[in-house]
């Protein structure tokens, strides 16, 4: 499956680089390898973390040395299928766009010479790939947003962005799972809880999922919010 770059990250992690660019095909290989590795963990493995172009494998060096871990990973990379046959999960995320939940929707529209309605239509028409979960618990790094609604980050980040806020930063879109400071342009909010510490897994989304956004009104937001309020 071609040359792969396996490098140590200190004495207890290994980084495997599958490519240099964010591409759906690279992502598919990464997810196939993670599935393969999690189905039969290598000796000493603690956990593995997929990202856009990499998989990082954490291990306990008391149980396995770097050379043993590397040799085993190289062998596994040769064995791993190029794609996984698991069924891709599509998660639909309701969003109440604009108003108090999306204070930057007008700015995103103006920046791109569109109406707010067109921004919503474009944002809800795409299917997004969850490349990774990180930055905050349950935060999805999504790929696949249309360049037509790309907008730079705020010059001055907000001190507190409410959980559930849906935003745009450059060519990326995402949802803040917990309240945090941030500079993304906020276009709406979802009543769904992306971080669910009482559940296993604790995240609504996982790397490899697909996401679709759909527009709801305020009444629907309130109704769904009550249904999802379990913690």
């Amino acid at each position: 499956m071609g040359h792969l770059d396996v490098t140590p990250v200190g004495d207890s992690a290994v980084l495997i680089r599958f490519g240099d660019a964010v591409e759906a095909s690279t992502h598919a290989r990464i997810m196939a390898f993670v599935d393969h590795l999690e189905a039969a963990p290598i000796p000493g493995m603690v956990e593995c973390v997929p990202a856009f172009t990499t998989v990082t494998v954490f291990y306990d060096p008391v149980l396995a040395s770097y050379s043993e871990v590397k040799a085993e990973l190289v062998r596994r990379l040769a064995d791993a299928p190029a794609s996984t046959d698991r069924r891709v999960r599509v998660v639909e995320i309701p969003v109440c766009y604009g108003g108090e939940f999306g204070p930057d929707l007008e700015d995103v529209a103006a920046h791109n010479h569109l109406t707010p309605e067109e921004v919503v239509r474009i944002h809800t028409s795409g299917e997004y790939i969850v490349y990774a979960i990180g930055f905050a618990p349950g935060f999805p790094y999504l790929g696949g947003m249309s360049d037509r609604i790309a907008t730079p980050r705020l010059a001055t980040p907000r001190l507190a962005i409410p959980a559930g806020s849906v935003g745009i930063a450059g060519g990326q879109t995402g949802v803040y799972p917990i309240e945090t400071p941030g500079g993304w342009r906020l276009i709406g909010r979802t009543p769904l809880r992306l971080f669910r510490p009482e559940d296993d897994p604790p995240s609504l989304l996982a790397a490899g999922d697909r996401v679709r956004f759909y527009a709801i009104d305020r009444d629907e937001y309130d109704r769904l919010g009550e249904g999802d309020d379990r913690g």
Partner: protein
Amino acid sequence: MIRVINPGLLTTVQDGGRYGYQKYGVIVSGAMDGFSLRVANLLVGNPEGAPALEITLVGPRLRFEELSLIAVAGAGLAPRVDGIPVPLWRPVLVHPGAVLDFVAETSGCRMYLGVAGGIAVPQVMGSASTYLRAGIGGYKGRALQAGDDLPLGPPGEWARTVMAMWSSRLRGKSFVAAPWGVDSRLLPKYEPNPRVRAMPGPQFEAFDEEARRKVFEADFVVLPQSDRMGYRLDGTKLALARPIEMISEAVTTGTLQVPPDGRPILLLADHQTMGGYPKIAQVATVDLPVVAQVRPGGRLRFTRIELEDAQRLLRKREEDIGRLRAALCHARI
């Protein structure tokens, strides 16, 4: 039960860490000085990763509402029970009503209070560690506050034996300490301005020649805005040979990443799971307890070590802890 009279600066419940959930963006957390946590637990007959209190810089004032076997480990504070100094690194039996407080010392940053039975808080994702930013784990997801009551778990068999034998010697005294303690040669080399061992990081070659040299030569001052998430360092600015386009990837505890301003950040227990800054170096796991004890204003110097040596030292540390575990089974109680 332990009653919190005064919480100190930052006192949290921590254990061996929350593993297996980084792919969901959930950080590992756990004790900053994992060695001290493990030994504090071993000395009271707990599993080494059991929930204990991590105490930072300014100590709390705590009252034990029941007979308790405790051990205090780490550096930076001198513990007292009812105003009488208590030795570190050994089991101590305290009477019901005993008040533990701490006097500041000149160096060191974090102490660990192990209690037989452990701090009995609910586990979240398999761990009792407090994840402050997400408000989960530990005691109600937050640092301790005055008036909190910390429940304790049932002491193990070894602890019960010790408590039964020593309680008769307690008669009116504030505490009874073991006549022995951990051999100081087994402890990490805690220092105010330590040298710590580090390996080149994944993007080491992307830095200019001066940065690659200076990272293993210069002194770095730990800035005041440092916390459990990471230490912000000042000193030599580290520059890339040329700008590189980084795509976020996983980072780990001990990662030395360099944002565009050239001032490195050393990621620690509460670091986020992914980062987009180039990583110039990676501190050896065996030296993380030493790093955890450096105060803001202290200096760090990185000494280059090979990966194989870092792993060898870690296995040696594990053997030392194993010896301690074995010795405790035969300790004269």
